[in-house]
């Protein structure tokens, strides 16, 4: 690998760079080490003194710094939109599993409730959501839209015949809509909207984790 002409100090530096860069994906790591090696070969004359070599190594900076520069900077947004458009898209964290989970949580309950449970399982096994997201996804609303449907056509709502009779001159009714009508409609609308809100929330949260993950983890090839 290292040509015999390379100064021992420079060779030692390269060895440190190889160690420091071991977490990089291997094609990029090899390329980086080769480039630094070329650089050293180009800037260090064959008869260089130790002092000259050390000066050059100082100019290059610590291997750890160079490896650090491979990682995308937090808060360093790609400056021009043209760059964002041309950048290779990394494999998204919000992948198929997350989308299927969101859809199943929303409408999976219609498949005899089983679909919703599969959705919940996918929700809990995904790494794209935090514990809080998963609790929200599970509890609002268990069963998803199917529950709304169930509530709407629950036997206690429609099947109890309304019986009215006159007792001591006062008209009393039993059965029928047994809870306050307005409250019922409000609850029904809320339970209809809530699953959609949760689904949107989960989709947004999965996208956020994707971005956070991109800056927090070592993913040099992605930017």
């Amino acid at each position, binding site marked *: 690998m290292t040509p015999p002409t390379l100064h021992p100090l420079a060779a030692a530096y390269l060895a440190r760079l190889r160690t420091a860069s071991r977490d990089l994906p291997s094609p990029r790591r090899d390329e980086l080490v080769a480039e630094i090696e070329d650089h050293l070969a180009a800037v260090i004359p064959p008869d260089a003194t130790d002092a000259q070599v050390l000066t050059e190594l100082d100019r290059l900076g610590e291997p750890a*710094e160079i490896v650090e520069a491979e990682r995308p900077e937090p808060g360093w947004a790609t400056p021009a939109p043209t760059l964002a458009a041309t950048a290779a898209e990394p494999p998204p964290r919000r992948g198929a599993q997350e989308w299927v989970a969101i859809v199943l949580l929303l409408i999976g309950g219609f498949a005899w409730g089983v679909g919703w449970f599969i959705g919940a399982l996918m929700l809990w096994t995904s790494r794209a959501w935090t514990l809080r997201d998963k609790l929200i996804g599970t509890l609002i609303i268990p069963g998803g839209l199917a529950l709304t449907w169930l509530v709407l056509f629950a036997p206690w709502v429609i099947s109890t015949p309304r019986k009215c009779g006159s007792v001591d001159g006062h008209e009393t009714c039993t059965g029928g809509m047994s809870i306050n009508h307005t409250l019922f409609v409000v609850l029904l609308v809320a339970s209809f909207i809530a699953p959609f809100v949760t689904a949107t929330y989960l989709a947004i949260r999965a996208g956020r984790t994707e971005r956070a993950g991109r800056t927090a983890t070592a993913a040099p090839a992605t930017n």
Partner: protein
Amino acid sequence: MVARRETSISQLRRGVLEFCVLALLRDGERYGVELVRTLGEADGLVTTEGTLYPLLGRLRREGLVETTWRESPSGPPRRYYRLTSEGDEALRTFSRDWARFRTSVDGLLETGPTP
């Protein structure tokens, strides 16, 4: 506060650095080491030359520059960098934005807000 100022200056520097690379390539291709050396010698722009190689790699992956290997009269083949049409476009856009940005910041730093 001092640490924070240093962070924002280094972020600013990193943000513009890639366009400095593109600008150096405007007049034609250049040898990678020469490119790094030129940037390293510009006052206050780069603290460590080695960190420019990751930047060059990024620009290449983003398709803003492309490279060719050329035989060297002395030593191993050399990697030369040149702008792609996308890189050229990015540089033009940045140059326009930068001119406005610089004028505004300079104006505020020197005289305060204009009435």
